[in-house]
């Protein structure tokens, strides 16, 4: 097991190096000039050159990259070319919002998805399955922003159950914080919940007809116990893999959701930075997204090996 994790870690580091290169080059290929954006349209060529020199943009690309990497290792991502605020500070204020939102959405998606999936299997061919299937279909096919607008209109404005926008720090006021995040998390989680529901249902249907489930019932175990200990446990192996593949999509989904609910999160920071060609911010943001993507995949792989004993032993043998 230890060796398996080490190998995966090494692969992750390699991915990270490649990603930093792609980000660095990619950002510089974007149309638009940060110096121009900073200095304004009316700036003279001398002023522009001064701004460029100040930002280090007049250096060769390789020198810029080395500086970028060196600073990164010192925890210095530079300053926003637009506001002059250190990028680390920008990230520190916006990242928690997105993390809370995503974590909340994942929890909602897993709980709702697995519950609906199990219900659909347990009541095959009867109305609860149809309801669950219909919900999954809606979750998959209706775009997030549209669901978000509907939710704001009916659940927030008409019924007044939830706030339409705004953010309260979860750590300083957990209850209110989660309350404010509930609607965004529901919206962000729908797509994932639908995928989990379908996957759970499909693999439950398969596992519940296996020989070991029949044997479990022949032991005299009740349906509920068989469902959870024999059916669900084996179905989850497949579900975890699928969820892992879907998590990356959650980050891009968060950008849209944050915009709808006006949350001061990472998504907003990203959009603003792209629009103003704020190189340091874009670089940091994209790198952080990449790192989280890699970490999520690593976590999923390790989790998978915990659930599926065969992989665990395979890695150690």
């Amino acid at each position, binding site marked *: 097991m230890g060796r398996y994790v080490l190998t995966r870690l090494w692969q992750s580091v390699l991915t990270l190096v490649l990603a930093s290169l792609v980000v660095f080059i990619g950002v510089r290929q974007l149309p638009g000039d940060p110096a121009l954006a900073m200095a304004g349209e009316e700036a003279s060529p001398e002023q522009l050159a001064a701004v460029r020199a100040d930002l280090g943009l007049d250096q060769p690309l390789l020198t810029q990259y080395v500086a970028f990497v060196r600073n990164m290792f010192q925890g210095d991502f530079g300053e926003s070319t637009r506001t002059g605020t250190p990028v680390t500070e920008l990230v520190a204020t916006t990242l928690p919002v997105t993390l809370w939102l995503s974590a909340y959405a994942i929890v909602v998606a897993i709980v709702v998805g697995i519950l609906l999936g199990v219900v659909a299997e347990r009541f095959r061919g009867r109305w609860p399955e149809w309801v669950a299937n219909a919900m999954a279909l809606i979750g998959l096919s209706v775009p997030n922003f549209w669901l978000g607008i509907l939710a704001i209109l009916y659940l927030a404005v008409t019924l007044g159950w939830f706030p339409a926008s705004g953010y309260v720090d979860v750590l300083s006021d957990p209850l209110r914080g989660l309350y404010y995040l509930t609607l965004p998390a529901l919206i962000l989680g729908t797509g994932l919940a639908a995928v989990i529901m379908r996957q759970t249902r499909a693999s439950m249907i398969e596992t519940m007809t296996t020989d070991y489930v029949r044997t479990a019932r022949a032991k005299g175990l009740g349906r509920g116990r068989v469902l959870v200990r024999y059916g669900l446990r084996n179905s989850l192996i497949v579900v975890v893999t699928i969820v892992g593949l879907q998590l990356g999509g959650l980050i891009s989904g968060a950008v849209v959701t944050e915009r709808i609910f006006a949350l001061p999160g990472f998504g907003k920071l990203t959009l603003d930075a792209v629009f103003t060609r704020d190189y340091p911010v874009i670089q940091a943001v994209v790198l952080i997204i990449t790192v989280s993507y890699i970490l999520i995949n690593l976590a999923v792989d390790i989790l998978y090996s915990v659930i*599926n004993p065969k992989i665990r032993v395979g890695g150690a043998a």
Partner: protein
Amino acid sequence: MLQDAENILEVTDLEIAFGGTPVLHRIGFSMRRGERVAIVGQSGSGKSTAIGAILRLLPGSGRITHGSIVLGGGTTRGEVEDLATASEPVMRAIRGERIGLVPQDPMSNLNPAMRIGAQVADALVANRTTEGKPDRAQIRSQAVALLAEAGIPDAERRYGQYPHEFSGGMRQRVLIAIALAGKPELLIADEPTSALDVTVQRQILNHLQSLVDARGTSLLFVTHDLGLAADRTDRIIVMSEGRIVEVGTPREILLDPQHEYTRQLVAAAPSVAAALGAGTLADPTPENPARAGSILVVESLVKEFALRGQRGSSIRAVDDVSFEVEPGTTTAVVGESGSGKTTVARIILGLETASSGRALIDGESLTTTRGARRRALRRKVQPVFQDPYGSLDPTYSIERLIDEPLRIFGVGSRSSRQDRVAELLDQVALPRTVAQRRPNELSGGQRQRVAIARALALEPELLICDEAVSALDVLVQDQILTLLADLQERLGLTYLFITHDLSVVRQIAHCVVVMRSGVVVENGTVDEVFNHPTADYTRELLGAIPGAAFAA
């Protein structure tokens, strides 16, 4: 409700239908307390359906449409109960506690994601007699004791292991421990050892029998193997196509079968035939020694596999194996799983390279020849694999499947190839109309005929049959073996028959190579090996053939 208080089970007029189609036609039988009864029949005979009905665990759309299944009462455990109409809570109490099940396939009947100890503990928890919260330590020690009793060595340590860390035989022992956890009065064993090697099969059945005898448990033993049924039970029920065709003691059934179907079954049962020393299909003196010398020469073959994750250490799957095969004869390579027999076959076919030694077909080796010579050599040797379900591409038509080797080798034109396919279908006794069908529309036996036709397409000299009949029912197995013997006579084919089943060897082979742990332990003609085995292991294998007791 119960006609005889001494009976533990009375099945009357039982009819079971799947989606409106009856598959079990009003069958009736009874079992006395402590009796051992076998239900024998081929797949599709309804024997597994009957068991599903008794446990009320019928798959899918299966329903009991008529009749009763009365479980005898009178013990401290519970009352007389009609299982055909009992409610689910009543059935839950009966399952495990009054009726235990040892299922068929040890590979698929344990939860792969759960420690085996916990799976035994589940059975104990489900059948607890005391109320309230289970005492975990107590359950655990009981489960360990059960595992040890079922013959799992070092049960305390193995309690925490997962199913994939156990061999098939050990898994079956775990399943036996689970079945006995609730101390049932009636134990149903559904083909409990069909998936296991003969010697393991014998150990496990002996063990199961001693456990059942010690407890006075009644045993309902379901099997397709008449010899096994005769060895292990007091009474045999023969089923065919959802009906009971004959009931009798093993002696009556084997030596004086009344029903036509039973007669066929007795004649075809390879174990019984082998034990009775009759029914050899192999032509004793092959007629066309057209060429002098051997068509296949295996010389000091060695194959080592590196062990994963342990640098430098390896396992010798094949260890200095040598033998020769004369043209027009059948040589069987016999051994249990892990004996290296399949690796030998794969090396001969060029699917695996030998670590050292050679396998020569007509003096040439598939591993060293290249290009056109290798292609020419490939035409001479063709495989027939075990699983007729897995070895045929389900998306191809039968014609395309048989035609494929011809196309690959660019033999003939389109129309001449069509004629050739028709001819091949004739040779394997399949109607020409199957050419346009797909594998899933054919039965297992028909598929294996297709696999043989495909193998014959290039007019090979040597067929490598890897467990080619193991997946088939006895009657079908018999038909395929007859077909192979017939083809050998007509086409002068040479067979290398890889099998774990000694009874099949007796039926078809001229020579036998007995392998164990990668080593050849015995090599000779069938008569020599069967009548005067020199190796202890061969004697053990021969002794393990079920039905041997009725040879006298």
